[in-house]
C-alpha cells in the first residue's frame, strides 16, 4: 500500500460509482485492547461483501482522510484513511494505519465479491 493520494483515490471512487459493487468496511481496536488496559472500551464493526450502488463518493480532509459514499438510500463512511492500493483485481483498497502500523480502519470497494 502507499500513502493515500487524494486525487488518485477520488478517480478510483468515481470509476466505481453507479455500478453494483461489494464493500468491505471494518473498524477495530483489536481483541486484546481491554486485556492490556482494562479501562479501555473495546469496540469495532465489520461488514464484508455488502452489495450496493453508490451514486457518488468523495475523499476529504488533509490526511488522514475521510471517505463517504452516497447511496440512493443511505451512506457508507470511513474516517482515518492513510493508505491506498488498487490491486491486481482492480479493487480499491483503502486503509487507515495507526502510528505503530496497526490497521485501525479499512474500506474496500470491488466489482466482484471479496474472497
Amino acid at each position, binding site marked *: *500500500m502507499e500513502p493515500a493520494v487524494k486525487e488518485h483515490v477520488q478517480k478510483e471512487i468515481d470509476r466505481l460509482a453507479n455500478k453494483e459493487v461489494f464493500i468491505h468496511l471494518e473498524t477495530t481496536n483489536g481483541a486484546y485492547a481491554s*486485556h492490556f488496559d482494562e479501562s479501555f472500551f473495546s469496540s469495532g464493526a465489520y461488514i464484508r461483501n455488502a452489495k450496493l450502488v453508490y451514486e457518488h463518493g468523495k475523499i476529504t480532509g488533509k490526511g488522514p482522510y475521510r471517505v463517504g459514499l452516497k447511496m440512493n438510500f443511505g451512506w457508507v463512511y470511513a474516517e482515518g484513511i492513510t*493508505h491506498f492500493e488498487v490491486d491486481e483485481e482492480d*479493487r480499491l483498497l483503502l486503509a487507515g*494505519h495507526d502510528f*505503530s*502500523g496497526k490497521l485501525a480502519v479499512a474500506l*474496500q470497494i470491488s466489482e466482484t465479491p471479496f474472497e
Partner: protein
Amino acid sequence: MEKERHVLVIFPHPDDEAFGVSGTISLHIDNGTPVTYACLTLGEMGRNMGNPPFATRETLPKIRKEELEEAARVLGIQDLRMLGFRDKTVEFEDEEKLANRLGVIIGETNPSLIITFYPGYAVHPDHDATGAAVIRAVKELPADKRPKVHCVAFSNNCEEEIGQADVVNDVSAVADRKIAAIKAHASQTQLMAANMEESIKKQEPEVLARMYKERFWTYNF
C-alpha cells in the same frame, strides 16, 4: 513429560501455537510422537500491517498462511490442517456444527492428548469459542475414551478462578526451535521477537520464565 501416542493441537489463529506451546510441541516431536495441528483461521483480521505497510486486508491471509506453514516446518509438524474459518467469526459459528467438525478430526487422529485454549480464560473470543468447541466434542466421547485436554489460559483473572497451572513443561532444551517458530510468524511478531531476544540475552527472569516454562491447565470433565 509423559510420552503420548498422538498430540492434537487445536487453535484458531496462526501464531497461537508459537508463544505458549511450540516448545511443548517440539518436545513431543523429539519424543517421536506425531503432532497434528488444526488451525481454524488464517488470522485474516490481524492488525499488524507495518509502517510502511507490507500487507493489505486481502494479502494478509496469504502471508499468514505461508508463515504458519513455515512455523510447522521448523517445529517438524507433519500434519497441519487449515480449517477455513474466518478470524473473529468463530464465536458466531453454529456451536454444534463446529464441535462436530472438530470431533471428526479427534476421531480420525485418535490423540492421547489435545492442547487448546481454556474456554472463558483465553481473552480472544475466537480462543474461548475454539476451546469450548473442543471441550464439547470431547464430552461427546464416552468417559473412558476421552483424551487428556491441556488448556492454555492467560486472562487476567485466570489464576484467581482456576488456580495455578497443573502442568508446567520446561522447554529450555528446545528454545531455539521455539524462537524460530515465533519468528516464522514475522508479520505478527517482528517487533516482539527482537525485544524478546534482547531480553533473553540480558537474562531477564520474567521473560525467561515465560519463554522456557509452558503452562497448562488440565481440563476436568
